[in-house]
């Protein structure tokens, strides 16, 4: 399994939670402690176990394009696409 991570742009996130339900690893959650200046609770990665695969599913469903997805390069090579 590839190793990945995501960063949520908290200022743009509207806390819709679509990413949290879409993530196959169930490692995204809404941060009810934080409120951005539009009054939304943003999503954040809660991945203590490092389960994020960098599959980008969260980014594909995010209506506010506020998720950036990273993945370790070798994973990509593993996918044979970068040859």
């Amino acid at each position, binding site marked *: 399994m590839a190793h990945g991570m995501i960063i949520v742009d908290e200022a743009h996130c509207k806390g819709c939670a679509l990413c949290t339900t879409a993530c196959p690893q169930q490692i995204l959650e809404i941060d009810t402690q934080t409120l951005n200046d539009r009054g939304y609770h943003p999503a954040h990665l809660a991945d203590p176990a*490092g389960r994020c695969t960098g599959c980008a599913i969260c980014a594909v469903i995010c209506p506010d394009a506020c998720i950036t997805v990273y993945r370790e390069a070798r994973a990509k090579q593993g996918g044979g696409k970068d040859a």
Partner: protein
Amino acid sequence: MMQALREPTAEMEVIYQHPAALSECRTHYCPGCTHGIAHRLLAEAIDELGIRERVILVAPVGCAVFAYEYFEVDGCEAAHGRAPAMATGIKRSCPENLVITYQGDGDLASIGAAEILHAAARGERITTIFVNNAVYGMTGGQMAPTSLLGQKTTSSPAGRMATLTGYPLHMCELLSGLQGSTYIVRRSLHDVRHIRQAKKAITTALRVQMAGLGFGMVELLSSCPTNWGLTPEQAMGWIETKLIPQYPLGDYKVTDEAKALEKAG
């Protein structure tokens, strides 16, 4: 097991990021509204085709009224329903540019029915992104021609009744009957798989215009959590269970030339 990360490591590369054609500003859309997804897909398609500097976007009157703010392309604002006419004026004056209208169901199927019909009949070389959320989003959830029978809206409080207001309008079915249309498909934005298919369709539609073929339209079944009175997640479910059965996904018209482009893509 891997360690949790808070910042990307040096070995990591960006797999997905904000598309360049999409502005870095905040949209005014409600949380979970799939207008945002439609925007992102269109921006990605523009980026991938490398046409950002050629696009002229015609924004509708509807929730997407500010679309021109959200894309890093030349853009303008049409009057309610008239985007296809405006796009016609633009395309005829700038045939080398790629002209895209982005329209809601009230805009395209109700007040602008004549304009979209005639743009398609003329085979106008424009691309229409048609966001069908079965409701007038911007004005607060009134019935649209695409509202389902029985659907409660703020202007059909007892649910839409066929005897009084007729039947849902199927724009893909309608426009695909016209000889001038080249690429008419319906996709959905309710889950990742469908979103990916939608993206592909948008790309093909733009290729159709780049190739100078006729009129192209991608209908996107889209959510309006706010006016449907559902959470964003529930709204996705509603698309799947209610909208899709009424508005079957599929390719309504793909001419042979368009098919060739689709494959090539």
